[in-house]
């Protein structure tokens, strides 16, 4: 009796090299945690990542210009803004090589008057929350200063979040994260077993910490800020990582039913991972393909969001192949030892 699926040579031996696989994860996670702790010390918000106006409250104004904006213009803008009491504005410029094409075909709305606005550079200003109503309208003041300093502009985007709302959004995001963890661990405990659930959860933390660490680093290097879409990305990554883990665990569960008498749990885990290797990689690959398309061709507002998911799906695939089942095998081994010699 031969079963070609079982007799096929294992491509990776997850149990034999378990310290290598786990060591690789640690080599990624330790720096990630260090960067996050460092960020918590240096940022005034004391958060492990640089948080955007979604969570701190503030106003972000974005303007498009049909000419090139140079560095001296920006420092001039900064001094002019500070003169009217806008303290420490964060100003960023972005050059646009490809023109923004405005066609009337897709909008059925005759009110849109802007035609063929070719925008060469984009200037974003981020400040504390500016009032935009009533007699002391700070937003209008800033608009006027931009017009005086840099010339005519096309208003691209305004986002403003009141300071109390920012705190509320942050709280909600944290609650959502926690609930997701509990929801998933609860579901897995019901469908599988508590040890499966705990191992899957560790794999999830692995992915979440890695992505947060990466964005913490981006925050230090490029000033990348984290908004509520980032939390969404983390949650999606968690969901995705669980997908992959479930595929492997489902196979371990199935194989355990029929093979447990003939083979050790370590061997079963090894066989199961190898049997599901192609699908673990392929499912992540199709998701990665669509995400990469979004990253390179999609809108600029969702770029960081997509990047977080790309990173998360890559580590998620790694963790479900090389961490979750390794940990599960170690857990079972430890359990077997405990029952073998009851001290």
């Amino acid at each position: 009796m031969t079963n070609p699926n079982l007799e096929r040579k294992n491509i990776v031996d997850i149990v034999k090299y378990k310290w290598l696989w786990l060591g690789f994860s640690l080599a990624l996670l330790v720096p990630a945690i260090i960067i996050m702790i460092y960020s918590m010390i240096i940022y005034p918000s004391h958060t492990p990542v640089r948080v955007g106006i979604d969570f701190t409250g503030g106003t972000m104004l974005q303007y498009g210009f049909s000419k090139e904006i140079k560095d001296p213009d920006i420092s001039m803008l900064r001094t002019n803004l500070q003169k009217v009491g806008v303290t420490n504005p964060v100003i960023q410029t972005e050059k646009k090589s490809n023109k923004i094409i405005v066609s009337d075909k897709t909008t059925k709305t005759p009110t849109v008057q802007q035609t063929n606005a070719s925008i060469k550079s984009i200037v974003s200003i981020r400040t504390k929350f500016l009032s935009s109503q009533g007699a002391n309208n700070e937003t209008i003041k800033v608009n006027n200063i931009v017009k005086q300093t840099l010339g005519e502009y096309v208003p691209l985007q305004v986002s403003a979040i009141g300071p109390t709302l920012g705190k509320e959004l942050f709280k909600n995001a944290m609650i959502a994260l926690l609930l997701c963890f509990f929801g998933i661990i609860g579901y897995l405990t019901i469908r599988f077993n508590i040890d499966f659930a705990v191992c899957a959860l560790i794999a999830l933390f692995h992915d979440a910490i890695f992505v947060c660490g990466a964005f913490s680093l981006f925050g230090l290097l490029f000033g990348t800020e984290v908004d509520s879409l980032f939390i969404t990305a983390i949650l999606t990554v968690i969901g995705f990582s669980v997908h992959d883990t479930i595929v492997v665990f489902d196979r371990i569960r199935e194989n355990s039913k029929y093979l447990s008498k003939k083979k050790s749990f370590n061997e079963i885990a090894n066989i199961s991972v190898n049997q599901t290797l192609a699908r673990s990689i392929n499912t992540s690959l199709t998701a990665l393909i669509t995400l990469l398309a979004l990253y390179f061709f999609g809108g600029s507002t969702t770029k960081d969001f997509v990047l977080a998911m790309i990173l998360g799906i890559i580590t998620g695939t790694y963790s479900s192949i090389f961490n979750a089942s390794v940990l599960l095998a170690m857990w079972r081994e430890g359990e077997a030892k405990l029952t073998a010699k009851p001290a």
Partner: protein
Amino acid sequence: MKKENLVFLFILGLVVASILVIINKPTKFGLDLIGGSRLVLEARPTAEVPQITPEVMDSLLYSIENRVNAMGVAETVVQKVGTNRLLVEIPNISDPQKAKDYLGKTANLEFKKQVKGFNGQETWVSTGISGKDLKNAYLGTDQTGHEWHVNFVLNDKGSKKFGKLTSEMVGKPLGIFFDNELVSSPVVNTPITGGEGYISGNFKREEAQNMVNFLNAGALPVPAVIIEENSVGPTLGLDSLHKSEMAGLVGITLVMIFMILYYRVPGFIANIALSIYGLLIFAIFKIIPVTLTLAGIAGFILSIGMAVDANILIFERTKEELRIGRTLYAAINAGFERAFTSIFDSNMTTIITCSILYMFGTSIVKGFALTLAIGVAVSMFTAITVTKNFMHLIFGAGELTHPGWFGLKKEEIGKAISFEETTARKAKLGVID
């Protein structure tokens, strides 16, 4: 084969229905794609209204709705969020600032009279007649036609009060205050009993028109402050829309190419199922209707990647079953049956995350969660029911004559399996021991 034909007809019917829906119903795009302003207003308690009750919110909603409607923009949204907030969405506005000034204005009209205070100074005191006593207001001019007036008509109760007041005040100035600012203070010549009057104050036409709109829409019961704003210019919105379309097309095409290269004929079938998935999703988006935002589109594109996940799981399993020498029909069935638990479990976790996101997320996050959840649910149908049906219709019950169709090599197919050693139940599940 009878059952398979029925299922096929059902799928065909769904496809036709979806196409009809897609053609006939418009797509709702979010403000980040067509441009516009999304504002969140928070009601602030005052000395007169110390608590924001649901009734206060209702009347605030009513006044804000009236004002938004007066702007004459189509497809605006005004809705209550939580206990003390209003969400206002105004698509396609060229000047969000104007809208903000307009919406946040309390627009409280008051008639005041002068009394001498203790120190001999004249101060304005309330007469009890305010914008609440108004029936309506309209635009007018003076006799020369040069100066713009705001004409007002008081309701019955207001007329009586106003008549009584003005008969007491002949020869004295009547203060007309708008949001605690003195607009004009005409001297009362004769008692006004008809309940009609006008307000003049060197208005420009626009100013007068605005005041007319405010008076007709009604004053806000409490001040409303903008605590969140997202305004996107039409230029950026269109740019994002084009880019998302592009990203979606590239993503779908690459996934389809991958599926055909790796899974061959089943991959092609999965692509057809994916196209049906796309049609169904769009039809559902239009029926509900789901407002497509940038994050929502990202969720949809991501769900394409996830929709083929189920197919990958099934095909890998089918290939395994073929390798151990199972017949084509049995292998396909076993592939679907055995992959189902992992597909179901993994999709359930996604649904769990999506529902939590939907409960706690901001509106951007909600859009993403909703499209992703719908996507996952529909993909269960297309990836399982549709693909299985097509697989059976195409491959039938025959032998596997061309292993290449599944991306397998002939020598890979193990013929050594002996079914006596496997119980019938296990064989059905695809487990060989």
